[in-house]
């Protein structure tokens, strides 16, 4: 893995062990505060752990940004059913490549986060659901889990505290939809990855219909430092309603793409210009996808803002999964829109009709627009169709496909019109007649 050196402007917390020699081994981990937080948590009450996470203002790092402490608090304590921990390591939102680093360079941090979560809700078993393409990471996690068992940080009677916790990896098999929590649970149970209707939410009825804590890799990885240094400390790193740091994955038209750790609320333009080395010489910024391809794109003049949940929402987009895709003035936005919708069409699980049919028709219409053989009304049709998908599906994939499409068509309409102008329609002749025969 070609991992970039940390940039001086980074706030290194979750990534602080990445650069240590042999960082994935338990010896390195233990020599650098590893399992100290878990040791502390094993002596804490369930309420105290959850309260600390609530105080930290940690919000889910997978994309939705739900407050983690609140989620953990939803697990019914008195339920006679077993409780489970599930890690969402199905990282597949285009633009996102951070969980790879966490698992490759600090796998024990993830195990420690799971152990703390298990203690917080009384779970004794968990799984790390890793996307199938990340086989080398499954091997790394398997090795780390074996080390943790050997050192009694997993298994029966962890560190003599009487607490049992088993953890194993579980491979996915190539389906973006399984990054959605309820589809992931279906997949974990050995079924097609189609979403479940909610409520009930996984905290009440998750894996095998039992209460389940399901969080992203980075979310679990943030927990040890919260327990070690306190929720207030973590909260103070971020902004009022969102604490801590997060990993930004910067890709696209920048000189030094990479993954950088920044506090929530870090200025977007500083991330692009300082950390990622700015744009290529002679190029100007055109658009930014702020947090994975399901987020509405921002035009260059909308990018001067702090990267926190509220600021991004105010700008009409989302903080998402931390996958920032930078596009300069050489970018063909019609092609970009088409490529994004092709992805969602391919990944639609087919369960909900607005998503299954909507993504297919959007792909067809955008294909003909890209080929210059669409008709003028197609531009409006794309927007209208996408608007009609919003909020009409079991899971957010329908919205994930519609939102970027709507934003690109709205903000870069001129490019779509220019594409149509490439094919001339003689006066007095029906536009559709000419274009479909080109």
């Amino acid at each position, binding site marked *: *893995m*070609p991992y*970039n050196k940390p940039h001086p402007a980074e706030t290194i917390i979750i990534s602080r062990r990445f650069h240590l020699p042999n960082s994935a081994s338990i010896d390195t981990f233990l020599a650098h505060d590893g399992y100290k937080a878990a040791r502390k948590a094993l002596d804490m009450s369930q309420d105290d752990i959850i309260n600390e996470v609530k105080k930290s203002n940690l919000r889910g790092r997978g994309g939705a940004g739900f407050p983690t402490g609140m989620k953990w608090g939803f697990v019914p304590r008195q339920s006679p059913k*077993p409780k489970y921990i599930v890690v969402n390591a199905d*990282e*597949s*939102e*285009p*633009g*996102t*490549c951070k*969980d*790879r680093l966490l698992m490759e360079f600090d796998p024990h941090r993830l195990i420690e986060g799971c152990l703390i979560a298990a203690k917080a809700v009384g779970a004794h*078993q968990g*799984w790390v659901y890793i*996307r*199938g*393409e*990340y*086989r*080398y990471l499954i091997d790394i996690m398997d090795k780390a889990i074996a080390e943790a068992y050997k050192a009694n940080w997993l298994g029966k009677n962890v560190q003599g505290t009487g607490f049992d916790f088993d953890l*194993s990896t*579980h*491979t*996915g*098999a*190539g*389906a*973006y939809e399984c990054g959605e929590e309820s589809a992931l649970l279906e*997949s*974990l*149970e*050995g*079924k*097609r*990855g189609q979403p479940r209707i909610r409520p009930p939410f996984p905290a009440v009825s998750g894996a*095998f219909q039992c209460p389940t804590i399901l969080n992203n890799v980075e979310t679990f990885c943030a927990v040890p430092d919260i327990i070690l240094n306190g929720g207030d400390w973590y909260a103070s790193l971020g902004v009022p309603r969102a604490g801590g740091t997060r990993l930004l*994955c*910067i*890709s*696209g*038209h920048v000189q030094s*793409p*990479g*993954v950088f750790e920044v506090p929530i609320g870090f200025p977007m333009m500083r991330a692009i210009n300082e950390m990622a080395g700015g744009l290529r010489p002679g190029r100007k910024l055109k658009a930014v*996808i702020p947090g994975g*391809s399901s987020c509405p794109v921002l035009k260059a003049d909308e990018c001067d803002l702090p990267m926190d949940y509220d600021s991004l929402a105010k700008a009409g987009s989302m903080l998402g999964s931390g*996958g920032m*895709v930078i*596009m300069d003035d050489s*970018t063909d936005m019609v*092609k*970009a829109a088409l*490529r*994004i919708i092709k*992805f969602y069409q*391919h*990944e639609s*699980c087919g369960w909900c009709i607005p998503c299954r049919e909507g993504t297919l028709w959007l792909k067809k219409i955008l294909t003909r627009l890209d080929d210059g053989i669409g008709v003028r009304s197609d531009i409006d049709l794309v927007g209208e169709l996408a608007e009609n998908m919003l909020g009409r599906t079991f899971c957010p994939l329908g919205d994930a496909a519609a939102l970027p499409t709507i934003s690109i068509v709205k903000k870069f309409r001129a490019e779509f019109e220019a594409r149509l102008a490439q094919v001339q329609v003689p006066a007095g002749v029906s536009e559709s007649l000419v274009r479909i025969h080109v």
Partner: protein
Amino acid sequence: MTFSPELEARLAKMLESYPKGRERAALIPMLMYTQDEVGHISKELAEEVAKRCGVTTLQVEEVVGFYTMLRTKKMGKTHLQICTNISCLLVGGDELWQHASKKLGIGHNQVTADGSISLEEVECIGACSWAPAIQTNYDFHHYVTLDQLDKLIDDLRRIQ
């Protein structure tokens, strides 16, 4: 049907990784790891996995049909996967795809006549900050240039 001792040990452990009576949970991992050894999910393999996980062959086929990485067709010795999703597209992913397809004379999910290489245009493989990226089987290659891809294909053709 039996597998190598290493795989048998893995499968036995896999079945114990889930709550009692929930052996079906091992279905997808079992398909992935056995497919790696057998090459593709044949009818015989589907029946074997169904038996071990306590489901019907139909339920296995239903799952196989859903997941991109589960294949009922024999692929090449090396499965070359080229990402053309947005981050890779912006820095030459599509050019890599076009070049590989033209050089090999095959398209998406097709295999060369000698069986050495199969080609797939894949969706995001999580290498966005190191784009353009490709995978050969499970191995990642980052910041791939046209020349590198060209040489890689020549090398892969020699391994048969």
